[in-house]
């Protein structure tokens, strides 16, 4: 066990935990932040995507011990009421089917747009192909990213 002061969504959260614990389970089990989802546990599906200092990372494969002073942003930290432009675009295009993959999709999209505010289709494919959507909402995700890129 080890103690960590984690910077999550702008707040310091303390945990006392096995250093090998992936950030995904720290968030879900220990901090009661279930917006970040478990899909595969091996960096294959993107459901668990969060930002570490603004970069999209798969939290299922990121041990808490590796965070250090890095700032974590989760879906809960984008905005409380869905006012982030990417969340708004998701609503506008009514993207979700089951919705389970969508926090991860949104977090990947936000990171993409931060780095590349006007992505092409190919840029979107590149940045998003690590995020599986079993319901097949890919077309709407792409549309929503383009809408968000205008704002």
């Amino acid at each position, binding site marked *: *066990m080890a103690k960590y002061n984690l910077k999550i969504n702008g707040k310091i959260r303390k945990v006392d935990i*096995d250093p*090998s*614990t992936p950030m995904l*389970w720290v968030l*879900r*089990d*220990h901090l*009661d*932040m*279930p*917006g*970040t*989802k*478990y*899909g*595969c*546990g*091996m960096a*294959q*599906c993107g*459901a668990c995507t969060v930002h570490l200092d603004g970069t999209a990372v798969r939290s299922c494969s990121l041990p808490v011990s590796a965070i250090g002073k890095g700032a974590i942003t989760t*879906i*809960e930290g*984008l905005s*409380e*009421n*869905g006012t982030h432009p990417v*969340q708004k675009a*998701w*609503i506008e295009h*009514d*993207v*979700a*089917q*089951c*919705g*389970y*993959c969508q*926090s991860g999709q*949104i977090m990947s999209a936000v990171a993409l747009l931060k780095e590349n505010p006007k992505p092409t*289709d190919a840029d*979107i*494919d*590149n940045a*998003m*192909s*690590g*995020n*599986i*959507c*079993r*319901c*097949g*909402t*890919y*077309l*709407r*995700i*792409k549309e929503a990213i383009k809408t968000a890129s205008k704002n």
Partner: protein
Amino acid sequence: MENKNTQSRRSFLKSSALTGGGLMLSFTWLSSFKSADKMATLNLPEQWAELNGYIKITPDNVIKIVCPNPEFGQNVMTSLPMIVAEELDADWKNVVVEMGVHDNVKLGPQFTGGSNSVKMYWKPLRNAGASARQMLIEAAAQTWGVPATEITTKGGVLSHSSGKTAKYGEMASKAATITVPKDVKLKAVKDFSIVSKSQKNSEGLKVVTGKPLFGMDYRVEGMLIAMIQHPPAFGMKLKSFDASQALKMPGIKDIHSFKLYDDDYAQAGFDTRTFNEMIAIVGNSTWEVMNARKKLKVQWEAAGDVKETVNGRGGKKEITVPARLETTSKQLELMEEYAKKPAQQLRKDGDPEAAFKNAATIIERTYNAPFLAHNCMEPMNFFAHVQADKALVAGPVQAPGWIEPTLMKVLNLPADKIEIQMTRMGGGFGRRAYGQFAYEAARISQKMKAPIKLIYTREDDMTYGIYRPMYTATYRAALDVNKNLIGFHIKGGGIPENPVHANRFPAGAVDNYLAEGWEIPSNVTIGAFRAPRSNFNAAAEQSFLDEVAEAMGKDPIKLRLDLLKRAKENPVGKNNEYDAARYVGVLELLKEKSGWGKPENAGKKRGVAAYFCHNSYAGHVVDLVMRDGQPYVESVTSAIDCGVVVNPDAAINMVQGAVVDGIGNSFYGALTHKDGVAEQNNFHNYRMIRHNEAPKKIDVHFVQNEIDPTGLGEPPFPPVFGAVANALFKATGKRFYNQPFKMETEKKV
């Protein structure tokens, strides 16, 4: 998702159910529900007048509509309430939606599957809305002292010609005391103002803000996390285990083996038993349980032939689950062997033997498809809190009413002591129609005397079975010298079920027709998978028809239209399941919208397929290109007849999803075995379609009619496989008979 007040809510529902027909004609005081996003902005009061099981209205004019059916992404939490709101004449902006708890008396069948939700609730929900509206009118009539017939409604407001108006909220408490009208008039389809207009997903905001909606997110104070260790292979069982090391791991509470069902238990139709004895690992947190599980030392042994009692639709029977440890190459050999044996005749019209004997040309092709894992994005999980005299279970499940009787037996509790809550499902696709994870959770909670949440890892989920079966079918067509189709023969089989729909097209359109089926029992468990059996038949039959058209020198759409004309004007045989006219309608629409046969599309590598299942008709034209030497479906045109479309934009989303799902599974989907072990166990070796592989464009068109809605979740899925196969032929010059096509293209292109 924590709900501390479930008992009070349950007792409320029980008492209201007593009034019969699910009507509670008095004020109810609800203090326990959690506010939805929309509710928060609607200044939520705590006083609701319940007009029937589906509708509650506050004095402040907030209208709460209960969604009876579990949500797995088909958007019923929007479409079903829309139907109520339409007949109620509510203002959709004032509607908040709540997921119902399991209560078949009050809320009907509550079954999500078979593309049935909208179809089966269409009339009941319209009646619920219309009768509540009538009660509000009656209340206003009494209050104002005017005849009810002089009162009109619009957007949640009652009006009288005298100029009097009232919002529904003002009349709701009085309306709740009024006798429920027997016959109510329903609106004409042309007068709809909510239904058939696109409305946004009622849970969209919660999804994009990461709110706890799913079973995985369910949590109560003091809850433990449980995982199960199931045998590593189908056909194996637990011999012994040593948990001493695992128990020393931090956070671990208990490790024990348990049986899913008692030994003499007769399984109901949806009680699939893959493994009967498993090991439960229970601890404080997911990561701790995962780590402890790795320290378990388990001895497995061959299960041998297993006798089971099944009490499904066909009545009670004893079955033997064979010992064989499955290997895919052997399964294929076995299927080839069975395909040569005599099979069960499922339908026969005319004299097919003679037709084939006299044929000038016989076309014969065999199609194969592998097991498929559902791979719902949210792995299986369930919450259970079993106490001495009652139980609460909660989680993602498609048919709460089907798991209840089994839970009663597993827990030895009466129905009224078992509360089932439905969470949003992170996908279902048929997998969550089988509730063994709920029984497992219940068993573990009972043993632990604590609330537990059972979580499957992705690996647990993918290797547990309950797959889409492995199928094969041989199609034969007999042509006379003039290239007329004079005979048609389908012989299909599978592990462990046969796929044949004997009464579907082209049955009814060919004079001499024979359908036969055979089955090979297996210990690999199977279950419904988005459009069961159809998802294979449409691939095989629609590819085959393409080859028949080619042999006849006919355009493939023209061939289908000609056959359907025959089926419509002078059908062969009885029990044809489909309506030829609606089938034709879809093909005509598809032809028009895709520009089929138009010169500007001459250079395209196009494939077409259309299929009928789940009471609806769907067809696609797929345009495929070769990209970096690999086939890529660039755009798709779809035409659907599912009757009235309740929520058009969401319906388009679902069709697009089905198309993407179909392309993904036809190219990549496969679950194979080696000595009983599933060879794929996570997304690194089970390939799923991804962003860059999805089409750029999927245009969806609906046949406009006023037919009561039929299914939509499944029908668009099966024909995708056939359309892809036919387009692949155009792009590569080769026919593809074995799914997944991608493996085939890598071998052959």
